[in-house]
């Protein structure tokens, strides 16, 4: 597919994109106070004296939040800075009780790293691409203003105040909405693998500031960028880039120039709007927070973080391909989400032990089942299916029966339907409902003998070289056996008898 281009009146333009993703750190307590981080609690019930910035209150770093940031840094192959420091970003706002946000401007905890977005022809990503990550720093979230509670007053909810965020800053390495979308999805996947952020964009656990600039194709200079704040879905990130790139190209071609400014995205109108320009930007007066000592990470802490890292998406995908022999497509599908690979690996392990073969020998069968067969059955049943019945044990038994040739693929689906409806044991269901293949050679031979006798002309033709007729005999046999004959056995006997 073509590279992403914006067609302008004066020629073709390309877009340059950088993303700052704010990811809420998974932790029971806030970054600098012991207060809880539960989502959806009653307003102002998750607020400590520190969060409310009472006089004389002091921040103390939460070890778990630091640990999660370090683990995240390791997962994007980044430099971990053993010495980092917190700075104060000063500005007044009613959702910011301290009058400053504790952040890390000068010395972030995580330095340069990278992640890989995979080739996706359909989306316009012809090959795997490395996206550079500039840094990750940790900082406090702000509270929330509520303007709809009173006719003339605004209310403040400080529950979110002080919750730990990681700000993950990419390099301006992306050149299309698709790449930006893939980047956010990949980053989200990594965060969820690591367990450092739940990636829940609807609840605001992850949101992105989207930096966009445009330039004429062939130019190597960066254009003036705009930053669209707090975009809270992958779809919106992509829409912002499309809208903003178009707007900037039109603006420049009409003789105007792009202003460096902060913008907001309005999903209802699918457009971005200016929030404030550089001229009235805050002077944040950053300086090192004197309440906090520099953060110095000990080697043992770093080692502990590294040891606690799970297998990450890229490594898992490669292992699925190389060791389990899965197709690249299956490997990618299975490793995209934590839940998906979790279910797959549980089922793989159960099936392998049920059958008594190594995982690699049954992986393809399990992958096909997990990615297409099982979801298909579930979907076809709709509300009739009880997802709780979709246990790994039951599915492994079905796959084992299929592996032994006791049931056909069609029978496996049928049995699984019963399992999903009733939660019954697959083997019992197979027996009860007569959902088993016949591998009894006597019965099959008898049927085949009858068919050969009744189709002497076809037999002659086949023996005369019309190989295609083999399928006819298989079909007739299966019909005679009411579809329950084991196809492998049928094939073998037919070959023997037809000669």
């Amino acid at each position, binding site marked *: 597919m073509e590279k992403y281009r914006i067609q302008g009146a004066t020629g073709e333009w390309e877009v340059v994109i950088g993303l700052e993703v704010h990811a809420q750190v998974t932790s029971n307590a806030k970054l600098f106070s012991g207060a809880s981080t539960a989502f959806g609690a009653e307003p102002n019930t998750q607020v400590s004296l520190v969060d409310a910035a009472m006089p*004389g209150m*002091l921040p103390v770093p939460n070890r778990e939040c630091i640990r999660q940031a370090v683990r995240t840094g390791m997962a994007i192959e980044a430099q971990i800075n053993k010495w980092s420091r917190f700075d104060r970003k000063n500005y007044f706002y009613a959702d910011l009780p301290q*009058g400053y946000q504790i952040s890390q401007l000068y010395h972030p905890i995580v330095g340069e790293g990278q992640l890989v977005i995979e080739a996706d022809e359909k989306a316009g990503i012809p090959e795997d691409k490395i996206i550079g990550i500039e840094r990750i720093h940790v900082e406090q979230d702000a509270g929330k203003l509520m303007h709809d509670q009173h006719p003339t007053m605004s209310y*403040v909810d400080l529950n979110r105040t002080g919750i730990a965020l990681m700000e993950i800053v990419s390099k301006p390495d992306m050149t299309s909405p698709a790449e930006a979308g893939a980047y956010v999805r990949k980053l989200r996947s990594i965060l969820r693998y690591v367990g450092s952020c739940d990636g829940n964009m609807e609840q605001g656990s992850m949101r992105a500031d989207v930096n966009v600039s445009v330039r004429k194709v062939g130019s190597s200079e960066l254009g003036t960028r705009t930053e669209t704040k707090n975009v809270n879905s992958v779809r919106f990130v992509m829409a912002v880039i499309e809208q903003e790139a178009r707007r900037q190209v039109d603006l420049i071609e009409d003789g105007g120039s792009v202003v460096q400014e902060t913008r907001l995205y309005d999903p209802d109108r699918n457009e971005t709007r200016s929030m404030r320009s550089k001229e009235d930007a805050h002077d944040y007066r950053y*300086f090192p927070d004197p309440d*906090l000592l520099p953060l110095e990470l000990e080697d043992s802490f770093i080692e502990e973080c590294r040891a606690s890292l799970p297998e990450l998406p890229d490594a898992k995908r490669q292992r699925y391909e190389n060791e389990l022999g899965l197709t690249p497509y299956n490997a990618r599908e299975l490793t995209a989400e934590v839940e998906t690979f979790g279910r797959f690996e549980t089922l793989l392990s159960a099936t392998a032990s049920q059958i008594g073969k190594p995982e690699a020998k049954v992986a393809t069968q399990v992958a096909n089942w997990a990615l297409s067969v099982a979801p298909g059955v579930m979907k076809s049943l709709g509300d009739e299916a009880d997802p709780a019945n979709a246990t790994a044990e039951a599915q492994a038994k079905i796959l084992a029966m299929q592996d032994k040739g006791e049931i056909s693929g069609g029978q496996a689906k049928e049995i699984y339907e019963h399992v999903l409806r009733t939660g019954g044991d697959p083997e019992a269901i197979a027996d009860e409902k007569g959902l088993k293949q016949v591998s009894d050679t006597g019965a099959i031979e008898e049927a085949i003998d009858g068919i050969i006798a009744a189709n002497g002309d076809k037999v002659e033709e086949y023996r005369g070289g019309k190989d295609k007729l083999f399928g006819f005999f298989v079909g007739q046999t299966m019909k005679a056996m009411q579809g329950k004959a084991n196809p492998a056995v049928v094939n073998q006997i037919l070959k023997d008898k037809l000669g």
Partner: protein
Amino acid sequence: MPETANELTKLGVKEIRDGVAGGDFTAREVAESFNAAVAAAAELNAFIVTTPDHALAAADAVDAKRAKGEDLGKMGGVPIGMKDLFATHGVQTTAASHILEGFKPQYESTVSQNLWDAGAGMLGKLNLDQFAMGSSNETSYFGNVNSPWKKDGTNAAMSPGGSSGGSSSAVAARIAPAATGTDTGGSIRQPAAFTGICGIKPTYGRCSRWGVVAFASSLDQAGPMARSVEDCAIMLEAMAGFDPKDATSLQMDVPNWEAALDADLKGKKIGIPKEYRMDGTDQAILDSWEQGKAWLRDAGAEIVDISLPHTKYALPAYYIIAPAEASSNLARYDGVRYGLRDLPDGAGLQDMYAATRAAGFGDEVKRRVLIGTYVLSAGFYDAYYTQAQKIRTLVAQDFENAWAECDVILAPTTPTASFPLGSLNEDPLTMYLNDVFAVPASLAGLPAMSVPATINEDGLPLGLQLVGKPFDEQGVLNAGLAIQQRAGFEAKPEKWW
């Protein structure tokens, strides 16, 4: 008031603690005596609020413990004054500002809690310079504090020093045996020197800052103010200790400073920094410094000349770093959650901030917030803040180098004695010079103490300052004790209030 009650207010921390423990008098008798003395000293304006019931309740608890034969604590039965910078549960805590007027914390500062746990009681919350910004106790929203001292032959109200001026005035006037202070750039030592009492700022991190209204976080440090070195040692032991709620708290055990007090300085070297001989320093101060050397030599110490070459840059650097931190620390007083809110009709958020802070902060606080905001601004940060931090490092290195040659440094605490209230109001720079000798130890985070040396020709006290190595409060206290024993400072203000 009965004769014995008057006698009890003459006592210091050690005498009260030992007297209560020994049954010479009850803690309640002590508390009642000081409560009465506090009530009779309103003219000093040393207290913003008095808490006689707190003092009595603490005393009764100590007396009850004694009846049961239990341990009474390091400060058992000693009522003290609490600088109104420390948050006290349910008791108004203002930092002497209008913006916090009426604010009653639902929490207790670590230092004050430590003192109550050690058996102390609270006479009241002591006046101070607003947000601890000032050197004369004239910036309080609740009025100037008067020193109990008068210049011979005059009746002019004199400054008790600042910012811990309520503390110094109360202890010097014997309406409290001891008081807490805080020292950011001399706020314990300078008022102690002005009023003829002792005060020690320990190593940065010894006393928790949790629950202390912040002025400049990297410099703020609490410490005791009392009339003897022993009393300071006792009270500092009760105040200090590691606090996990303060990330800058020292993770070290609190030494037994009182038990280890020793005025024999044999083998110790006392450094005399040549840079502290500044123009504008009173001759009487220089004379007392010479006298101090002689006393310490007499105590067995060797006197050595040392150099602290970056001393003259310390004060300017301090007046960049401290306001910078303050400008940020004071941002939380915005009228949104607690304290004063000034919301003019039809006002929006920005108007509310402006009106609240304009009405809630005094001139000196505004001046420092403006300075701090300026030096942190884009385009000025490197020229001011970064440079000041470099100077801070150099000042600290000066001391590091000095420790190769001496154990404790002896210097004047202030360049002059106390001055009449109002005399320096129009001249902030001269006012700031009061702390020129105190600020270097603050920038370096070192333990430093002022002890009374003598009385000048005007009948006003002069103090000498001792600065020690990091964590060596003991060395400072011991040298202070040697001076105390030789100075024989018995002068006290004549009661006029």
